[in-house]
């Protein structure tokens, strides 16, 4: 394949640059070893005696003996507020409450990651008062682990150069930061270049991220998806602390050479280069552009993101095409402007996430609200607005299984390009999802309820209710973290305004409501290498048990 060298070059360019950074000691004197530890017992230790009461029958207690301890006499807890000793150490009530003056911070163990990147996550500076009970100290460790740069992080203190002063030591163990985010492989039914249906075509793709480029803390990611005469590329750069602030900066470049398929097995096409009677009308288009964004935390569990997108779209469309819609023949709307056009849009997204686990959650919820508006005054050829609401809730049932309920609702108002509309394949488990904006499959909705959803490929409105039941069958702490068996069942609808106010002729009763069922079953596997879903729905989608595919009213 001629694009293969390009893809290899693209992936090669994503490999992390090898950077050298010395372990930086921002402060420090010679290291002091901890006090000698007593030998740890290798077998279960003998119990100490009970010293109060009457030994119970069957107890292995030895006769009463005086309790022994190496503890020093109990300290008198100050009855008033914190006491500042002449030596600069503050002991507040409670013997484990200690405060020191921070003399410096020492970072150890970093080879690729620069010390200043580590120090970004430490909210203390030399001269600050360090309270050993400050929860920020524990959070600092988790913040550093959360960067993904380190396999282990340990904090400790050692004496400074004068009494009452300490040095905060941050010991890190770096980890591989090149991460495979996603891998896509599947088969679909698509369309040949002359518009005739083809049985099966393979598609695939992958997403890879270097989360700590040259030790700077910046993430660089790339992704590609490929199918027959379709290609999608992404490059993404994210800085979780943009310019040292609490804002996340994120930018992405995209390129798509895409095809999409319209009609339902017997379309008429006005295209001088193609036969007029085809199975499907094919729209070809390229997208080239990018996105810049900023994100900020709204609290422990909430974040807000603002994005601006700009894309140039080049579309090659048939001069005209028509297809059956119910009993009528109507022109096909390709939802793209022929030739060159521009998309310019602003997006705001709020995310609220209280899940206890990103992949196999057992409790909590995940909710997003997104609003996007095309900036027609700033050059967008597609005037539209888009609103999406999505919520999920996980429940742990008394017997340990997990129930997941999910709801989705969205609307597009105006003339959005087709890749911004709602696609039935994204809602039905029996069809392949879009990958990086590429649509691989020509099939309509499975239509298990025999409704007019079979006439709909893209819609301006979509809604879905879904329930998933999970049974944990394995939990581990090494290479495989968890395996769950799951089964899901859902109801979804995709439609446009015309499907509501002017449904296709020939459908009656409840069949004018464009809804369909979806289901899936399989395994969810969480591993050290990533998370995988092995589901049967995509394969089941090729089994010919579907409802009427030509449309219930197709002549």
């Amino acid at each position, binding site marked *: 394949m001629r694009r293969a060298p390009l893809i290899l070059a693209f992936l090669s360019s994503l490999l992390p640059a090898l950077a050298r950074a010395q372990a930086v000691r921002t402060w420090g004197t010679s290291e002091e070893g901890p006090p000698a530890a007593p030998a740890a017992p290798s077998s279960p230790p003998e119990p100490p005696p009970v010293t109060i009461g009457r030994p119970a029958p069957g107890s292995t207690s030895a006769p009463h003996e005086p309790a022994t301890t190496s503890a020093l006499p109990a300290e008198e807890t100050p009855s008033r507020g914190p006491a500042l000793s002449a030596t600069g150490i503050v002991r507040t009530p409670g*013997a484990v409450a*200690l405060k020191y003056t921070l003399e410096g911070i020492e970072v150890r163990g970093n080879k690729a990651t620069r010390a200043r990147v580590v120090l970004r996550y430490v909210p203390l500076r030399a001269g600050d008062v360090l309270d050993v009970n400050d929860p920020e100290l524990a959070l600092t460790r988790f913040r550093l682990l*959360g960067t993904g740069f380190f396999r282990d992080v340990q904090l400790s203190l050692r004496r400074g150069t004068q009494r009452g002063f300490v040095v905060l030591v941050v010991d890190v163990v770096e980890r591989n930061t090149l991460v495979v985010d996603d891998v896509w492989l599947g088969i679909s039914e698509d369309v040949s270049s002359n518009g005739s249906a083809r049985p099966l075509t393979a598609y695939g793709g992958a997403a890879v991220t270097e989360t700590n480029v040259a030790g700077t803390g910046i993430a660089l990611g790339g992704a590609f998806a490929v199918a027959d005469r379709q290609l999608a590329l992404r490059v993404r750069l994210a800085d979780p602390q943009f310019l040292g602030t609490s804002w996340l900066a994120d930018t992405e470049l995209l390129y798509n050479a895409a095809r999409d398929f319209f009609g339902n097995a017997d379309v008429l096409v006005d295209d001088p280069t193609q036969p007029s009677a085809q199975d499907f009308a094919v729209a070809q288009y390229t997208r080239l552009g990018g996105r810049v964004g900023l994100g900020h935390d709204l609290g422990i569990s909430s974040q807000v993101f603002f994005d601006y997108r700009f894309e140039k779209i080049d579309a090659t469309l048939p001069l005209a095409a028509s297809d059956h819609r119910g009993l009528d023949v109507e022109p096909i709307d390709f939802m793209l402007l022929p030739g060159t056009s521009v998309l310019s849009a602003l997006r705001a997204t709020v995310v609220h996430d209280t899940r206890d686990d990103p992949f196999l959650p057992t409790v909590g919820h995940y909710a997003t609200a997104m609003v996007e508006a095309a900036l027609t005054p700033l050059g967008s050829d597609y005037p539209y607005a888009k609103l999406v609401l999505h919520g999920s809730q996980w*429940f742990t049932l008394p017997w340990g299984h997990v129930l997941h309920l999910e709801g989705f609702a969205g609307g597009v108002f105006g003339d959005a390009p087709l890749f911004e509309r709602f696609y039935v394949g994204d809602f039905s488990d029996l069809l392949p999802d879009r990958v990086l904006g590429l649509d691989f499959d020509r099939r309509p909705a499975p239509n298990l309820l025999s409704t007019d959803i079979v006439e709909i490929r893209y819609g301006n409105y979509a809604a879905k209710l879904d329930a998933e039941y999970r049974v944990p069958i394995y939990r581990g702490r090494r290479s495989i973290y968890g395996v769950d068996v799951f089964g899901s069942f859902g109801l979804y609808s995709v439609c446009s305004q015309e499907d509501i106010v002017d449904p296709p002729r020939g459908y009656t009763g409840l069949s004018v409501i464009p809804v369909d069922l979806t289901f899936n079953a399989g395994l969810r596997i969480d591993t050290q290498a990533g998370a995988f879903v092995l589901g049967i729905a995509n394969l089941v989608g090729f089994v010919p048990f579907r409802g009427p595919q030509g449309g219930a009213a197709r002549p």
Partner: protein
Amino acid sequence: MTPVRRARLGLATALVALAPLVAHAQAPAPQQPAHPDALALRKANYAWEGELLRVSFSYRDVLADPALVKKLSSGLPMVIAMRAYVYREGDVTPVALAPRVCRVVYDLWDEVYRVHVSEPERERDQAAVLDGVFRLCTEARDLPVVQRRLLAAGEAYFLAVVVDVNPVSTEMVDQMRHWLSRPTGSTGIGPTDALFGTFVQLFARQIATSDKTLTFRTEDVTP
């Protein structure tokens, strides 16, 4: 029956079937041993003080890892939390729970460990050398466990013990997750839309647990 009616009937049946599951859904109970009677056996000394059962046992081996001993001297607080569940032999539901929390921090300039112990009936602050820390923080001495009236006479009971070193609290987990999720930002409904979304889980497992967990059960005591 038409396919549409069949499907509607199926959908209604499924919803009815799911309803009781939702109604009984609840937050998980505090973690306790799944199979308490199958835990490794350890000796304990029991005594009755009137109607109160007291017990002494050691879990000194929870600090068998030299790295944890070294961490005791880090100058930052270390928590050793012990939960002793009282079970009747053959049962999987505990009848009582006796916790014990030891918080220790090394005073760098006075070169002494400052220990705070919380257990039923008492809280105390002490200063200790390292061996004293082991005695104070990894041994339960005369721990009040359960009143006799909660136990059935003639039945055998035992303790299932869970010891965590530096356990992570729920609040802490929330804050950790907050940081873990920072690079994500995906808003798509499908997992295929997320470019960065999946790698965070690689770290959640490591940091959402304690530094060390020790579980065992004690020998029986019969009231």
